[in-house]
């Protein structure tokens, strides 16, 4: 797919990830023990032959730069193409950060037009899945679409989800943005679009000059009849992370063998930054059940239904249940952690107890000591 370039929006202001994105972009949010969310988008692109990738950041992007570096871990350190990171920019006139995707795209017109690819894959970075974009491209060409909108079946569990309804042949008849959570299942947009580059540039210029900055609201929902919008359904495993609850649920959901196999052993290999951690050591008092454990951990306590990231230490007599412990977390002797998300470098001292609820996991912010 040398004919498609990728544009990834690293910060996604629709999300409500609170504490977890104070220090980082949504793209660099840790996921499933050793990954960051953007790994899935990058790996899918690379596995589909998309190697010209621009990443548009908005704020707090140092963790993202540190993670991606030259893109070598995704085989994107190329002479031709590779990764270009666009730091947040301030337009001379406005003195404020870009207001929406339209303005962001307007500012990277040079990147879009100077590269030879004819199509652009636009994507947010809060979705974990394993798909082949070649199939999306083939469908796009076959349908003669202006924009192909990737969707999956789900309930709009929070507001501002994009509900899509299409005809039998996939042509989209209606798009609207939800106002409140609903229990019914719809085809929900994944914020991933394939579009011809010339058309994209034309739309962006026109919208920008009219002061319209929201790609979804100002373009897709308003021009649903003028543009040939086609739906592309993703039937397999899809995890969308856009609030604390979905972050917790989607991590824990990967304890399921079937889901894990679909995500990691599906269309292609999922790559991430290599850290050369040693394998995990289980000591004499270790008792680990139904958990995902990354390398570099040392475990001498009890761990159940949990996800441990790289380099986590679990002391003797410590108990971790239904929790997500991020990189280099330390749960010391006889401490208890239940229904919690502890960010990187969190220490839970001897005998302390941290407990949330299944419906409301407690979050311990990065670097804190309890």
């Amino acid at each position, binding site marked *: 797919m040398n004919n498609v370039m990728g544009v990834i929006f690293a910060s996604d202001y629709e999300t409500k990830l609170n504490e977890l994105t104070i220090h980082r972009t949504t793209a660099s949010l840790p996921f499933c023990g050793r990954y960051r969310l953007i790994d899935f988008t990058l790996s899918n692109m690379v596995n589909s032959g998309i190697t010209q990738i621009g990443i548009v950041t908005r704020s707090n992007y140092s963790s993202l730069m540190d993670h991606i570096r030259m893109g070598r871990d995704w085989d994107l350190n190329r002479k031709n193409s590779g990764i270009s990171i666009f730091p947040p920019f301030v337009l001379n006139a406005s003195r404020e950060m870009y207001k929406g995707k339209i303005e962001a795209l307007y500012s990277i017109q040079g990147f879009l037009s100077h590269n030879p690819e004819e199509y652009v894959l636009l994507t947010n970075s809060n979705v974990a899945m394993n798909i082949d974009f070649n199939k999306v491209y083939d469908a796009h060409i076959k349908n003669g679409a202006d924009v192909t909108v990737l969707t999956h079946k789900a309930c709009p569990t929070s507001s501002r989800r994009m509900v899509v309804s299409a005809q039998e042949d996939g042509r989209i008849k209606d798009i609207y943005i939800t106002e409140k959570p609903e229990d019914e299942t719809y085809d929900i947009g994944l914020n991933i679009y394939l579009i011809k580059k010339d058309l994209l540039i034309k739309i962006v210029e026109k919208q920008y000059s009219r002061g319209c900055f929201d790609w979804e609201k100002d373009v897709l929902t308003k021009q649903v009849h003028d543009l040939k919008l086609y739906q592309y359904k993703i039937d397999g495993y899809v995890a969308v992370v856009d609030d604390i609850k979905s972050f917790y649920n989607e991590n824990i959901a990967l304890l399921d063998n079937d889901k894990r196999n679909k995500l990691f052993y599906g269309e292609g290999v999922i790559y991430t930054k290599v850290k*050369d951690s040693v*394998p995990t050591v289980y000591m*004499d008092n270790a008792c680990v059940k139904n*958990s995902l454990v990354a390398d570099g951990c040392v475990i001498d306590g009890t761990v159940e239904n949990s996800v441990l990231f790289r380099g986590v230490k679990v002391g003797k007599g410590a108990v971790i249940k239904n929790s997500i412990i991020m990189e280099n977390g330390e749960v010391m002797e006889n401490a208890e952690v239940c229904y919690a998300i502890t960010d990187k470098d969190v220490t839970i001292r001897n005998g302390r107890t941290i407990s949330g609820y299944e419906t409301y996991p407690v979050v311990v912010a990065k670097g804190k000591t309890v």
Partner: protein
Amino acid sequence: MNQRKNKECIAMLLAGGQGTRLGVLTRAVAKPAVPFGGKYRIIDFPLSNCINSGIDTVGVLTQYQPFELNQYIGNGQPWDLDRLSGGVYVLPPYMKGNAGEWYKGTANAIYQNIMFIDRFNPEYVLILSGDHIYKMDYDEMLDCHKKHNADCTIAVYDVPLEQASRFGIMNTNPDGSVYEFEEKPKHPKSTKASMGIYIFNWSVLRQYLIDDEANPDSENDFGKNIIPNMLRDGKVLWAHEFHGYWKDVGTVSSLWEANMDLLDDKSGINIGGDGGDKIYARNSAEPPQFIAASALVKHAIVSEGATVYGEVKDSIISHGAHVGMGARVIGSVVLPGAKIANGAEVYYSIIGENATIGAGAVVGAIQTAPVKGEWQIALVGPGAKVADGGKVKPAEMVE
């Protein structure tokens, strides 16, 4: 290629050994490519030691079953050895003029690559072998070499007296200089065993290699020819004592022991590298390990991509390996991608890469002590299959 700056010291890693004593493990791969410790291969140790010691130019001499090793080394990126000047080079034997020949011995292998070394015009050459597990700062050894104005410095390791007759032994003066080298002496005078790690002044070694090649009776070996010749000529040879963990993993029993040492705090092997001595490896890009609700994992090392549903104790489970429901793995080393089916029992064994142990099969037996210094380790070769309900006896080898 124009080297703008000469290298002070480059390393030559002898990786051509067949490793016959490792049996089926090295039937299709060179010994340095044999997996170790859950996510490493033996060659990761000398390569990581090089980069951690500031040596950025390494020639890897291969000739036996080189494909897997070549692929593993690649451009050297996992060890930070992808350099504009220097880096890692795989050096197989090649045709010269009308002639070409295999590497006849350790010294001949270096002799055949004189032109390679000359391109970097180094002051010193470090000779390494690819069959030991250890972490060493070669820079310290180089300092020792320079301090004593030696022509050759040999790393030595203090072995128990009763084992000394199995090694090449350096007999030294009280100041540390070497006066005699004895290969596997019946009555050892010292317990300083050569670790097969040498630093030579390149100009000196270069001449000895040329002279040695001209001698038709020579076995072209460092231990048997080069070192004794240098001693005879009164060159300055120094023994550099190494006190860390070091193990020759040339046999199935010693390979198993070295893996088990990872589980023993007292063994002194510490592969984690907090002090800038990390061991690097090519990454296999697998998800975190999954320990199921039915699993029982104690006193064990488990790596990424492994899935454990059964019991694992005193064992190393490598990346991508699988231990089925009701299976027991005790005192064993399960290499990458191996599958232990439901209800299988594996005791004191090494299970090769991508091997399959059928449901209910029993491999090996629990042991309390080695027999004549050798553990009776059952060995299932790479890709081999043990049928459902099959039996593999201790010390048996399955292809």
